């Protein structure tokens, strides 16, 4: 039965959309970039190698929590033993990647991006979507999107850990303080982008002040809310920048760890 823009009573127009601009470009780009990231991240998560080069650790593997971790990479100890799945060592990356992944999967911006690009629901504004039925986020599994705030809290923990990693990178390979390398900058930039991404998050904006009915009774929280609101305008940009940041940061550490490049020290 005809539904949507072809429903009975609506203007009889054969086209799914009459848009004349390149509306498909944005979703196509999103698919390309996100898929590239997923392929790379999956490869790295299962590679289980080249994630540590004293004092640099890849954000994909920090904190390294299992006995499988290479020496010196476990900031918070090793509560987990070595697992083997189908004969392969279970990558310690998998213990932690679930959290940033969850944070981004439930992020209000990424939801928009992947609902449009992957689900095509809708592919672009005023372009008919291909699905016969639609229930949105009202039932499982998508109702779990409402758990965004828990992933936000978890994300904050990771931001702290990765910030510590960046501070620890002010050492040389002999663990002496007072040194700085390109790797230090890379880790610092990564941590900064992640903080900006978290601070600009809609849940953050809600928690810090958005949930209040009367701002005038909470002047400090109101002030903070206005700052977060400014960042929130740029949440989309921070989402992408921090995504690239994490991938490039990991790539840098990987190349150093694998010996392909040398981590250049300024002092």
């Amino acid at each position, binding site marked *: 039965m005809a*539904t*949507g*823009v072809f*429903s009975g*009573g*609506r*203007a*009889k*127009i054969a*086209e799914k*959309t*009459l*848009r*004349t*601009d390149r509306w498909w470009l944005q979703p196509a780009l999103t698919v390309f970039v996100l898929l590239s990231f997923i392929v790379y991240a999956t490869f790295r998560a299962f590679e289980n190698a080249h994630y540590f080069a004293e004092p640099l650790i890849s954000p994909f593997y920090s904190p390294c929590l299992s006995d499988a971790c290479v020496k010196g990479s476990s900031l918070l100890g090793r509560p987990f033993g070595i697992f083997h799945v189908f004969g392969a060592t279970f990558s310690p990356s998998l213990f932690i990647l679930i959290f940033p992944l969850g944070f981004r999967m439930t992020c*209000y911006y990424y*939801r*928009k991006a992947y*609902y*449009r690009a992957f689900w095509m*629901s*809708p592919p672009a*504004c*005023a*372009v*008919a*979507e291909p*699905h016969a*039925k*639609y*229930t*949105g*986020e*009202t039932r499982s599994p*998508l*109702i779990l999107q*409402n*758990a*965004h*705030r828990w992933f936000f809290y978890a994300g904050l923990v990771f931001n702290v850990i990765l910030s510590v990693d960046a501070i620890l990178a002010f050492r040389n390979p002999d663990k002496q303080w007072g040194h700085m390398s390109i790797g230090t900058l890379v880790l610092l930039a990564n941590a900064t982008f992640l903080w900006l991404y978290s601070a600009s998050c*809609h*849940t953050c*904006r*809600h928690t810090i002040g*958005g*949930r*209040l*009915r*009367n*701002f*005038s*009774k909470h002047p400090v929280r*109101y002030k903070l809310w206005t700052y977060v609101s400014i960042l*929130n*305008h740029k949440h989309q940009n921070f989402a992408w920048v921090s995504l690239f940041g994490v991938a490039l940061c990991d790539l840098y550490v990987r190349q150093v760890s694998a010996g392909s490049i040398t981590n250049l020290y300024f002092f």
Partner: protein
Amino acid sequence: MARKLKLRIWRGNSTDGGLQDVVVDANEGEVVLDVIHRVQADQMNDLAVRWNCKAGKCGSCSMEINGKPRLACMTRVASFEEDETITLTPLRAFPVIKDLVTDVSFNYKKAMEIPAYEAPAELKAGEARMAQVDVERSQEFRKCIECFLCQDTCHVIRDHEENKKSFAGPRFFIRIAELDMHPLDMLRNRKQKAQEEHGLGMCNITKCCTEVCPEHIRITDNAIIPMKERVVDVKYDPARWLGSKIRKRDGIL
């Protein structure tokens, strides 16, 4: 100065219709509505189009221009290429009446379903005191001119007729947000109703409403997402739920 403009206008009614080509003069500085009026006066006396203020303030001349939901009075002719054909159709989320005029009664039905503002019972006229910072969020939503372009573009109903009964749409999510953020409103179950009765959960925040809003109201970021977060507070967050049971927190629930 004048240029020949190629228009393709949808003409018809609820049972049949199609696109018709016309060529019309357009002057510098004119908007699409000016040109439609010229077509109406010279070539198609009975061309149906809704309009009022011609100043982007009343939200009457909503239509789809080259497939995009827009106000005809806010779309400048100069924004199109010299030889571009401009296609004008009625809103495609609502039943058509004639030509560019659609039946938007859906929106008035939905308006009826949103509980009105409830002033504190003891408050006397003239005694209300509200800080500017406390009314600003709601004031943004009250800029709405009810052009219903957000409703038209929202795929939840545009692409799924069957959802119309259970989904209020972006225009009414900002109305709910306006009231839930109103410093004096007494009704405290707006969040629950938003989720359970007005279909807030159907929204997948794909932001087309924000993209088309001629008043630049940040519908998704400032109304829908904050409402979704408020719904989480009262429905899906055990910590908040518990907290609210233990002590009634000031001004939150």
